[in-house]
């Protein structure tokens, strides 16, 4: 079996994987980072979104071997101790989550939006989150959270 090494949340991690092992399974099963979730099998729901080399990726659609040598950030890697990332804090403040299952993917996706567009409008947020499903919130408070998170991350509005 091939071995992969990647820097996950700032720590170098190595493991043997099958060639077919998905990045999400590597994170969940090999590294016990269970904050990244699997909600579908057609790459639509976005519960599995992580950052690979700073960009949002659906980790159910990426082989672990393809992330060999990469820097990977998961939801577990965002907070600094007890201090939440501004986007996490915005979701908490604006009730942008209910059951919490889609939340890690939402937050990771939202941060990548702001990295690409520091001052998104509501329409930008709704369009960007096309690949992240939530069944609980009706997106109303997620949109509010992302806008507030963008602002807290230093965006214009």
């Amino acid at each position: 079996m091939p071995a992969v090494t990647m820097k996950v949340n700032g720590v170098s991690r190595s493991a043997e994987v099958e060639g077919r092992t998905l990045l999400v399974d590597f994170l969940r099963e090999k590294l016990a980072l269970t904050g990244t979730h699997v909600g579908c099998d057609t790459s639509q729901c976005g519960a599995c979104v992580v950052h690979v080399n700073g960009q949002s990726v659906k980790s159910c659609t990426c082989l672990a071997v393809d992330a060999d040598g990469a820097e990977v950030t998961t939801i577990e890697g965002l907070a600094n101790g007890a201090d939440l990332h501004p986007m996490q804090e915005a979701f908490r403040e604006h009730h942008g989550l209910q059951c919490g299952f889609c939340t890690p993917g939402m937050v990771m996706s939202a941060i990548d939006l702001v990295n690409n567009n520091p001052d998104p409008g509501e329409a930008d947020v709704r369009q960007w989150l096309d690949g992240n499903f939530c069944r609980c919130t009706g997106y109303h408070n997620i949109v509010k959270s992302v806008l507030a998170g963008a602002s807290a991350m230093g965006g214009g509005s």
Partner: protein
Amino acid sequence: MSDNGSNGTGFIGASLKRKEDARFLTGRGRYTDDINLPGQLYAHLLRSTVAHASLGSVDTSAAKAAPGVHAVFTGADMEHVGGVPTGWLIHSKDGSPMVEPKHPAMAVGKVRHVGEIVAIVVAETRDQAREAAALIDVDYQDLPAVASLEAARADGAPKVWDEADGNLCYDWEVGDRAAAEAAIDGAAHVVSIDVVNQRLVPNAIEPRAAIGNFDPTTDEYTLYTTSQNPHLIRLLLGAFVLGLPEHKLRIVAPDVGGGFGSKIPHYAEEAILTWTAGQLCRPVKWTSDRSEAFVSDTQGRDHLSTATLGLDQDGRFVGLKVSTKANLGAYLSTFATCVPTYLYGILFAGPYTTPAIYVEVEGVFTNTVPVDALRGAGRPEATYLLERLVDKAAAATGIDRVDIRRRNFIREFPYQTPVALQYDQGDYDATLDLALSAADWDGFEARRSEAGSRGKLRGIGISTFIEACGIAPSAVVGSLGARAGLYEVGSVRVHPTGSVSVFTGTHSHGQGHETTFAQIVAETLGVDFEAVDVVHGDTNAIPFGMGTYGSRSLAVGGTAIYNAVQKVIAKGRKIAAHLLEASEEDIEFADGNFTVAGTDRSKSIGEVALTAYVPHNYPEGLEPGLEETAFYDPLNFTFPAGTHIAEVEVDPETGVVELVSVTGADDVGRIINPMIVNGQLHGGLAHGIGQALLEHCEYDAEGQLVTGSYMNYTMPRAGDLPNFNINHNTTHCTHNPLGVKGVGEVGSIGVPPAVINAVVDALSPLGVTHIEMPATSERVWQAIQAAQAQD
């Protein structure tokens, strides 16, 4: 103390941030699939690929010999265990009990829907189990299938069950047929409508999962499962399927990623995983993938209905008759039989004074995935039919849509409906007025004109509705066929140094119970919010419970907790009286302090708690400790109500419907946490809008699911929805001490007819009078073409 138990500390009514969020936001939620037990094996469930077949041989020899495989079991191996039960016995018009076939955990003799479990393969890894399952050779001897209500009820239709003639499970009725028909016959106006309430897939984003475990040293089974009601699972699994006593069966429902009804039922998978773990003396985990969920999670709705409403010359409703066919699927799931009857037929008074109502429902077997509760469960189906019919009545009589509703509102409470319910309280004019104002109803024609200048057809739609929540009084539901009581249990443990653990039989899978229930306890017991933790989801930790569904958690479970707090205070009063050398009657309790009336002599709840656990100076005959449990059986349903208004713009060239705005004015009873309540309303609205505009679960004639993944089942996405305009007008429930009603299902009940009424309003200049859900662009475009062809 103010009314409804508040000590005035300000926790009730405050939008406190949620206790549960810290773990969810940092990836530390603990969902079933996140749990791995030492020595755990993995299961794959082989499911039927055909909708109806006799099962010939099931050859598992190659699978058993495959790498990593520990065991393969089929229906024959589990044939001796009990069937998966259904929770509600319905009787037909003639008094006969419903047809109730045995539901084997794994298929025996026949398969009856695509997705039915044929075998379980257990292996060292998930992939090994899946690959071995592909080696099982199943001889399916195809039988003709019935996949729709029309096909199942057609003359000479193939039978899903030999014992169910005409594929009828029951032929149920409620109300007075003769009175309703006589009223309609004598009415000045009569309007009728045929509607389809399409099948939906619940699609909680967390797929179902289960881990069975057996400890041979204690003979104890543990099942981790994605359930909304762990005690109910223990009852059904233990008593009916596997024959395990409660003290040897523990059910853990940890963090659960949404339910929406699909995680109420006791599923065959839960029995299979528990039994298999016992056979192997190893933990066994199964996690559904999404494609599997589409053919194995219970589905919702699926009605065909026709209804007739009679009105007098002033537009007052005089009689209503409803005939419905309800698809139950191939097997009877836990709440399958009561959803289209006692959660549906009894809603047809709505907020109106219709004096004569009759509802008849055929429960029908088909070769499809079982149908059970889905957010709203029966009440959306009733509300949609009624509110479409009221709009048709307005069109037929020429009476304004708002006016005709107002003319028929119930204004005197309590109000006994002709279909069993007694409403305790409400103010339907207030929510209507609030919604009309918030949506600027009066300014709509100007917006319609402006849209017209852009080539768009703009429409506005309204729905005024009621729901029956907080299920339910045990004696009432027992007389109607429920096989369980529907009370709830709350336990409050004040620890020696004053922190508090609260145990609830309800289950939180997004609703924020850990916060809301802590607010109730902090306020009523006068302790710090941070000092209160709420425990749910483990039958070994919690005395008992019936779980979360039917918007019952706060009204029933919250009241149980409230009552347990009152018991704690009553005991604390005895302890305080002893410490303060006063009589018990002179002790007042407020803000966490027991005070001798008219003095400044007092003891805090913390001092009383410490005394209860260190009883050196203690009332004679009183037990030490400060922990109380309350079972609360509600006196009635609760009746949230409201008005929803939707505004749409239709592009006549493409049929695309843009949902421009959604306004809600809701009376959900007393609000504990406005932030959480509004979140629940948002989610329900999204679910209802999904039904109105996007979602449709379709089978082909052979019973193959056509919409079996997110590629072809349209889930509401962020871009499909507007922001929601939420407004509240509150009346308090009169029969629980908190005055609470329920909120989780409001949106999915109230908004679908508002949206469709808006679409029909937009298209009405073209002569369109009805459109079925979901109002997709294709369907709208075809309706426009058909209307234009008639011109």
